[in-house]
């Protein structure tokens, strides 16, 4: 039996592989991304990035319809996008086992919101398993495929950042179940959800869930761990580990299957302890279910947001917590920043000069909202930039409005916004930042780059042709590293009465591994005007005298600062190795 140190995401991939999945499909999103990347490394599984989560869930529905086992992966907000197929797949049920892995992000380490996917399980009437650690992630994912086929339901496996991105020791004892494709059976009453069929499946859904509820009560996914009888704690997912650490004496009802909820088990647990509290992340949800089961819950002041840690649990129960040392005062913040050589930087430099209202989107380029560039006015959800640019222009007459969107994000859900703009006679400007990759989530290929998850180079989405087909009349591609060229094109696009799409193209600096020689500041020529500082490049700072200086160990010689310096003060510095700078 082998032991391995696996992250929750690696463990989910392993569990799916052991269960004999034929296909894995998803859209990247922290903290879920590595799951599919890891599954793709196993033999015998076809893995693909979809343009968005809805498409992923639908491709998976096709695999299941045709009898294959399939894993779908996404982050919590992706489930909003995939919700439409999910709700109806609960009615149809499955052919081959259908498991949707969704990763929530309490504390918003890398997300725009903190929504709670547990609520989707109830709203969509779909079972949900909640592993507390990597070992459980493997076991539960594998089991989820059997449950899906036995109970004829898609199954959600929900993790959180501290499950997905924590590693733990996992025993690898299971081999792979031979992938079996169930024979295809034409069954329109099950798969064609016209109202007459859907009404029957709706009733059947309750029957399937009721059967699964019996399983939920008895199968050990939900289990009572009796220790003392004074305090009983109900805890799900990652909160379970925090409880075990903080309250080693307490009895625990561990919730591993939150839907269907084990009402009888909760009542049995409550009868064996003096008082019951619920510990969970993201606000009262299990708490309400426990109450609905008729159990009196003692209220404790848990935070409604963020992560639950052992200290939060202790504090909520009035137990003493450790006090740490004290940081020196006045420490500067360290926000994330655009990398040296990032092609997005020049586009935001240009956008700032147009004085436009810039509706933004989600990706590395969201960093264009941060000072000193500060050239993005909104960021809501993937694809929103395009619709918002159009909407804002309906009522804003003074300033131009520009929507800015990354290549992966455009393919995800920006295209329909552009169609709306064109269809309704819009004349705004959309800038697509084509850096040839999905950078933010770790450089996945996407339809625009044509690079697939298997590493092959497929068809590249032709952005210019697509923009024209949607109805844009002014369409142009510029080199994003040519700052003045980008600015000129942007000014023209904004001034044009046509619907304009500007594609700012240049590969992500981390992909192109720019290795040009660094540049330096000629102190005699620098006037301390600060123009280069305004680029927000991590290699450039001011000296005491206010003049610029460039850290050769960070500079990648991209040339952006040379382009914005009107005095020619930025000059070649010679090869980095001669200067002792090698920490690139």
């Amino acid at each position, binding site marked *: 039996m082998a*032991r391995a*140190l696996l992250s929750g995401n690696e463990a989910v991939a392993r569990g799916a592989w052991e269960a004999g999945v034929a296909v894995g499909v998803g859209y990247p999103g*922290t*903290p879920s991304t590595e799951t599919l990347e890891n599954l793709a490394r196993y033999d015998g599984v076809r893995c693909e990035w979809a343009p968005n989560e809805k498409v992923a869930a639908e491709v998976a529905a096709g695999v299941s319809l045709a009898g294959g086992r399939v894993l779908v992966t996404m982050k919590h907000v992706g489930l909003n996008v995939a919700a439409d197929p999910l709700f109806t797949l609960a009615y149809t049920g499955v052919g081959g086992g259908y498991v949707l892995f969704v990763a929530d992000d309490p504390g918003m*380490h*890398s997300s725009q919101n903190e929504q709670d996917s547990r609520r989707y399980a109830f709203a969509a009437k779909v079972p949900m398993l909640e592993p507390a*650690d990597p070992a459980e992630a493997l076991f539960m994912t594998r089991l989820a495929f059997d449950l899906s086929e036995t109970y004829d339901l898609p199954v959600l496996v929900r993790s959180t*950042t*501290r499950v997905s*991105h*924590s*590693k*733990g*020791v996992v025993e690898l004892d299971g081999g792979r179940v031979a992938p079996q494709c169930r024979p295809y059976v034409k069954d329109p009453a099950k798969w064609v959800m016209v109202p007459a069929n859907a009404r029957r499946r709706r009733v059947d859904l309750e029957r399937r869930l009721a059967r699964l509820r019996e399983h939920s009560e008895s199968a050990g996914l939900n289990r009572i761990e009796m220790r003392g009888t004074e305090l009983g704690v109900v805890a799900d997912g990652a909160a379970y*580990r*925090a409880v*075990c*650490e*903080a309250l*080693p004496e307490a009895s625990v009802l561990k919730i591993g299957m939150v839907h269907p909820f084990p009402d009888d088990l909760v009542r049995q647990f409550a009868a064996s302890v003096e008082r019951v509290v619920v510990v969970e992340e993201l606000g009262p949800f299990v708490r309400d279910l426990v109450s609905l089961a008729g159990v009196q819950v003692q209220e404790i002041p848990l935070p409604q947001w963020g*992560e639950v*840690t*052992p*200290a939060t649990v202790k504090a909520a129960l009035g137990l003493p*917590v*450790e*006090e*740490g*040392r*004290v*940081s*020196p*005062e*006045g*420490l*500067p*913040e*360290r*926000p*994330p*920043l*655009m*990398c040296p050589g990032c092609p997005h930087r020049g586009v935001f430099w240009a956008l700032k000069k147009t004085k436009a209202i810039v509706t933004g989107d989600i990706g*590395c380029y969201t*960093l264009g909202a*941060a*000072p*000193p560039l500060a050239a993005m006015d909104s960021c809501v959800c993937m694809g929103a930039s395009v619709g918002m640019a159009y909407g804002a222009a309906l009522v804003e007459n003074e300033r131009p409005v520009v929507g800015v969107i990354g290549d992966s994000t455009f393919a995800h859900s920006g295209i329909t916004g552009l169609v709306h703009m064109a269809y309704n006679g819009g004349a705004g400007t959309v800038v697509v930042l084509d850096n040839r990759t999905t950078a*933010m*989530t*770790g450089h996945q290929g996407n339809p625009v780059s044509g690079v697939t998850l298997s590493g092959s180079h497929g068809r590249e989405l032709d952005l210019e042709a697509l923009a024209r087909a949607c109805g844009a009349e002014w369409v142009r591609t510029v080199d994003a590293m040519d700052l003045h060229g980008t600015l000129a094109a942007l000014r023209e696009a904004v001034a044009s009465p046509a619907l304009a799409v500007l594609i700012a193209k240049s590969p992500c600096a981390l992909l192109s591994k720019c290795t040009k020689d660094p540049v330096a500041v000629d102190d005699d020529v620098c006037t301390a005007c600060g123009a280069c*500082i*305004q680029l*927000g490049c*991590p290699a*450039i*700072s*001011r000296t005491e005298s206010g003049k610029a200086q460039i850290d050769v160990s960070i500079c990648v010689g991209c040339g952006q600062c040379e382009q914005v310096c009107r005095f020619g003060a930025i000059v070649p510095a010679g090869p980095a190795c001669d200067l002792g700078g*090698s*920490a690139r």
Partner: protein
Amino acid sequence: MSSVTTVVLAGVGGQGTILAGDVLAKVAMAEGYDVRLSEVHGMAQRGGSVITFVRFGEEVQSPVVDPGTADHLIAFEMIEAARRLPLLKREGRLVVNQRIVLPLPVLVGAAQVPDGLEAALAEEGAIFVDAEALACEAGSSKSANVVLLGAASAGLPLSQETWAEVIASRVPPATVEANLKAFELGRAACLKGACR
């Protein structure tokens, strides 16, 4: 519970904290301990502050580290050392790479590094290491993270042989020798320094 050793690695995205945390966790696992490691990817990796938790012992529950509970803080840079200080126990051990990576707000003149940062860390008992210099001495400027592991190892209950095995298995083959040297230099620097 007290048999659990808790280590925090703090640095700046891109400094190699994730690899260092992974090596430490694998060493602990190879020595037969239960291990939990937790890190945060995504937005923070773009030059933001990053933090990795590694906890090992007979049985480890939570992967998260609360204030005042870390036995070791390994800081890859002084501002991050100061930022994460609250996580460290009073009697905890503080290993600090003696350099500063300026964050963007400081670079653009919107914020400052507080005066006397190094002195404040010294007051907290910091064991300073010049990891970049030792890494260059070892032959690979990219091995500064391994120098810091070496320095931290002097206070961790893990055997030298296991460290060497895991490091050799985790770094690019061409850099194995330099990384092992980097580890030794870090460890030696710490042993002759102000180790407690």
